[in-house]
């Protein structure tokens, strides 16, 4: 089993960081031992730039003790959390300054920008909270643990981005109806600073800077949503700067055009994330297992010797990568239900579904 020359069907696929492989094979129990002992494939099946950079080290399961369910979480435990905290601090500081200046000088544009930044900060802090709280151990109230918080944070971020796109469209409409003399040129300073801070954020989370990502773990969704958030903000700031510049060049309706393009861009950016997180919250069947695999498993179970019928296989995902299922199996008279249990568990473990409850009846 530990022989490195042994045939490993999962070589280069499982455990590779290639995000294009949506239906990647999961470890099966038998090869888990082998894979654990064999060295990580030096040349993964595809070593392209879309692989996740290794330094973003995944959490080894036996890492630092997870926090208890009290609020003294370790807020700065991992590198992504520290980076997010830095981003948050920068944004909060800037927003406070902007609000103060806006109130003192009576410039409404600065105040509205400060509000917008504050909303964004609130969301990012919820993401940070989710990252900190999600490592808490499960208790009797939250029997599945707190990992869902990450998906929730991602969903909230996606919602916010949808709202942002909508409000940008409204703003575009607004500036279409107003004339250009009302354009607030003083906002350009704010836009430039915002752009730099957000570009810093995009750099921190650069491995998630894609629209369509395959989600392997809970934190993937959260990090992706944070990246899209800062990306969308930077696109918006860039749009504002471009609009100001074009207006100064005398281009008509520059603001409308730029805001419109930015609004559409943000919408397209966020839609896949919104759909994916929404699906998890709606308890859709696990995305990394092809539907045909479920059908095939069903057929194999029905074909097993002691089984007379299979009913109601229901599967859902708690977070990407952790699937849960409930099945009901009708065992023939006199059949051995424990062996049926073992067989069915084994079948689904090959698909990567560990958390199963199988009700055997009727022997």
């Amino acid at each position, binding site marked *: 089993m530990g022989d490195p020359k042994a045939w490993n069907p999962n070589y280069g696929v499982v455990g590779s960081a290639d995000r294009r492989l949506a239906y990647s094979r999961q470890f099966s129990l038998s090869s888990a031992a082998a894979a654990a002992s064999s060295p990580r494939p030096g040349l993964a099946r595809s070593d392209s730039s879309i692989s996740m950079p290794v330094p973003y080290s995944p959490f080894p399961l036996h890492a630092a003790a997870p926090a208890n369910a009290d609020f003294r979480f370790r807020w700065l435990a991992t590198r992504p959390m520290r980076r997010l905290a830095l981003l948050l601090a920068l944004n909060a500081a800037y927003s406070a300054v902007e609000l103060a200046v806006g109130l003192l000088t009576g410039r409404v544009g600065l105040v*509205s920008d400060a*509000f917008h930044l504050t909303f964004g900060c609130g969301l990012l802090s919820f993401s940070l909270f989710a990252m900190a709280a999600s490592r808490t151990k499960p208790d*009797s109230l939250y029997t599945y643990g707190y990992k869902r918080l990450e998906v*929730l944070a991602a969903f909230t971020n996606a919602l916010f981005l949808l709202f942002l796109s909508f409000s940008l469209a409204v703003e575009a409409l607004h500036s279409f109806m107003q004339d250009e003399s009302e354009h607030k040129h003083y906002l350009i300073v704010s836009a430039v600073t915002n752009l730099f801070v957000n570009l810093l954020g995009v750099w921190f989370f650069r491995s998630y800077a894609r629209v369509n990502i395959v989600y392997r773990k809970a934190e993937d969704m959260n990090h992706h949503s944070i990246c899209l958030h800062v990306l969308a903000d930077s696109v918006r700031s860039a749009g504002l700067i471009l609009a100001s510049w074009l207006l100064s060049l005398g281009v008509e309706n520059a603001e409308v055009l730029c805001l419109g393009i930015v609004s559409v861009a943000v919408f397209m950016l966020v839609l896949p994330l919104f759909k994916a997180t929404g699906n998890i919250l709606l308890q859709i069947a696990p995305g990394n297992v092809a*539907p045909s695999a479920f059908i095939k498993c069903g057929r194999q179970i029905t074909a097993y010797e002691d089984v007379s019928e299979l009913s*109601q296989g229901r599967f859902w995902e708690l977070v990407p990568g952790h699937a849960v299922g409930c099945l009901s199996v009708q065992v023939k008279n006199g059949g051995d239900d424990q062996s049926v*249990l073992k067989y069915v568990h084994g079948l689904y473990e090959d698909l990567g579904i560990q958390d199963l*409850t199988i009700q*055997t009846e009727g022997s």
Partner: protein
Amino acid sequence: MDSHNPSPPHVPEVTMDVSSTSGATGNKFCRGSSCDFSDTSKDAKERSASIRKLLIAVILCVIFMAVEVVGGIKANSLAILTDAAHLLSDVAAFAISLFSLWAAGWEATPQQSYGFFRIEILGALLSIQLIWLLAGILVYEAISRLLTESGEVQGSLMFAVSAFGLFVNIIMAVLLGHDHGHGGHGHSHGHSHDHDHGNEEDDHSHHEDHEQGHVHRHGASVTITTHQHSHSSSGLHHDAEEPLLKHEGDCESSDHAGAKAVKKPRRNINVHSAYLHVIGDSIQSVGVMIGGGLIWYKPEWKIIDLICTLIFSVIVLFTTIKMVRNILEVLMESTPREIDATRLESGLRGMEGVVAVHELHVWAITVGKVLLACHVTIKQDADADQMLDMVIGYIKGEYNISHVTIQIERE
């Protein structure tokens, strides 16, 4: 497979038998339409009543909004148009609720094996986010009113417009909130009709009632229908007499459990969130009225307008907290509040023949539909089927969780 297995006269068995004829097997074998995750007739009725209410509210809202838009354009006043935009947000919230109500009735697919009931929860979350967004926008408007130099802000206009908005919102709050009497009657009538038909579907709706026994109104209607049950002449009657007491007993226990809920019959979560939206708007209108009145009376006191708006926005946020907590608990797949997981586990462990209970998970698909899954280790010599029936009967009887999956393992 016979669904009415002649059971030994063992009291829990009989209860289980009658309370859910297709329930006993339905639980073991949820086939297609007889499974409680499909759209039962009672669910559909409740949903169509809610949809009707919301449709009326939407139509009213659109009419009022049109009136305000026309008035605002003719008077060339930004304040009126802004209020029309707030009414538009009301329409958006109702539209979200309507869509959620409609979508929750979709049939389950292999990809969405539990059905689409969760859409209600996501729709309610979206509505609540809208409420928060609006509160933020109102605060921003108050600040901008403060910053723009006076002259543009007419206190009298503000007052009048927000008074109109308040009036509209109150009408809609009454419309949306006024469901207890009708709903209750609707249910008991619905049930008596269902019972007279006496086919399998209706046994399910009866069964549905039991599941939601912890909610009070349904508990009440169940007792009515059981009386009906004994009068009508369908075939299940020979065992109806004894368990009639048990039913009352069940209802009693759920009565006690739900004693606090007597005063507050459950509303559909989407209607409730639309209702909250309307209440939030009325609170805001009151705040704006006070601010407008103050500005009208003494235009120098503009800062009070801002303070007023802030206070009322905070009040609105507080009204949404309870619903947000419910939504979050469902989305986090946590044990529903009405079920005590530790008591359940110790109850199971205390049963005869059970050695250990592990991986106990109780979660809700939407408010009111609870599932349970656990692994039970039994003694080597115990009869698996009997243990399964005992465990399922206990869970159904004590906690009213109908959709249960138990994995029986031997030591």
